[in-house]
């Protein structure tokens, strides 16, 4: 009887430690498909030959794996950040939700009187130079460095006030730690000087559709030709 009690105690402790782990083994099923896709996405469960082109059916797993690999975000992608953000429309997203479009990002705060209006103007000037047809594939993102003040409502008002309320503009409010982490990825420096005032670096960053940094423009009112050509280059590629 005593031994039994000991066993129960030991078991409880062991279970307590083990409960953190979860192991799931998914077994992949092998599916076959014509390599030429004569019948579109039609798949077979048995090996054989294609009824149209007579080629041997290939197991699909390799192709699928390849597809996942290209879909997978790279080590350098900002989509590796898992922080949560609120948009000016009140939606909660992760950066990965922005995948698929060229991203032009800048960090600002709406109560700023000095540099931000010019940074925002720089963003608008870049947007103006982009061929209209490409705008559907580009997202201009303004990230607030003052998440405590810049609520989604404030950001929305700011967007309307600055004529930046179209589809291609996105404003983001993060958490204090999320913003700090994001700034570290962009190598943006900032410091709160007083409750509504920050000093910060003026950097506009361009990311490709996979979230990899391809270009940074530093300074205010600088020549934006290189930035614009880079945006067009990676969007049309």
């Amino acid at each position: 009887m005593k031994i039994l009690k000991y066993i129960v105690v030991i078991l409880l402790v062991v279970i307590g430690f083990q409960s953190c782990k979860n192991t799931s083994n998914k077994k992949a099923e092998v599916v076959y498909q014509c390599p030429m896709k004569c019948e579109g996405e039609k798949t077979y469960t048995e090996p054989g030959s294609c009824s149209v082109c007579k080629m041997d059916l290939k197991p699909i797993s390799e192709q699928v794996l390849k597809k996942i690999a290209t879909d997978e975000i790279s080590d350098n992608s900002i989509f590796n950040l898992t922080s949560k953000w609120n948009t000016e429309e009140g939606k909660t997203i992760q950066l990965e939700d922005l995948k698929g479009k060229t991203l032009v990002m800048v960090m600002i705060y709406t109560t700023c009187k000095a540099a931000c209006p010019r940074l925002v103007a720089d963003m608008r000037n870049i947007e103006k130079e982009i061929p209209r047809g490409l705008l559907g594939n580009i997202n201009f993102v303004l990230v607030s460095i003052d998440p405590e003040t810049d609520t989604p409502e404030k950001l929305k008002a700011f967007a309307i006030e600055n004529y930046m309320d179209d589809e291609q503009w996105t404003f983001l409010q993060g958490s204090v730690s999320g913003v700090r982490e994001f700034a570290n990825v962009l190598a943006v420096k900032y410091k709160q000087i007083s409750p509504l005032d920050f000093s910060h670096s003026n950097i506009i960053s361009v990311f490709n559709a996979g979230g990899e940094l391809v270009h940074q423009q530093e300074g205010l009112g600088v020549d934006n030709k290189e930035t614009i050509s880079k945006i067009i280059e990676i969007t049309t590629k």
Partner: protein
Amino acid sequence: MNTIFRLIFGMLLFFTIHVNCQSKMVLIKGGTYIPLYGRDSLTVTIGDFQMDVYPVTNEEYLQFVKKYPKWRKSNVKSLFADANYLRGWKSDTILGDNQLLKAPITNISWFAANDYCECQGKRLPTIDEWEYVAMANEDIPDARILKNYNDFILAWYEKPKTFNNEIGSTFKNYWGVYDLHGLVWEWTSDFNSVLISGESRKDVDTDSNLFCGSAALGATDLMNYAAFMRYAIRGSSKAKYTMKNLGFRCVKDL
């Protein structure tokens, strides 16, 4: 009766083991002081908080990577750490030959340090908090005007490879915290708030100005040359950088 006693004993044992996993912390009583670089007003006010007595060790970090595989050397994403991450480790879970278990962990990025603290339910200290605790010597909370306090730090800067020493090998300060000076530099949560120029990669010239001390003239504390070195390192660091003399410790709000 016996059974209940044994159960309680077992649970106590469990909790002691659990508590021991958490590194020792001490209470830091907040206050107001003038840091090297402040905000609009010169003084900074710090609230009460708890700070790790020692920097995080190789041993503790080893446990961490065992539990969180994404921070293993072979798994870590290049967005979050440069190529020197955990340099010298034999493998993902084996330290190098001359890396002591009780030596401070170094060659870790800000992202890694930040995540480590979060996983312990703690956080990295802010620059202001770190500097506040670090201005103490053995006896008084603010020893920055004392010559021997500054001499000690500057002498450390000349000592090679102190990162190989064990934790606790320097002095215990007024708050009961060890190794803030004399072992390794330490990450802070807002290291990227040191604005020497707009962007860290452009800081090369400014750094050399700082290192030769010419920028010291505008600061609030001319004596604290040692602190200039710390701010210069912070100002030129990027979050994915890893350095062999840069470690970290965590703090916790009350």
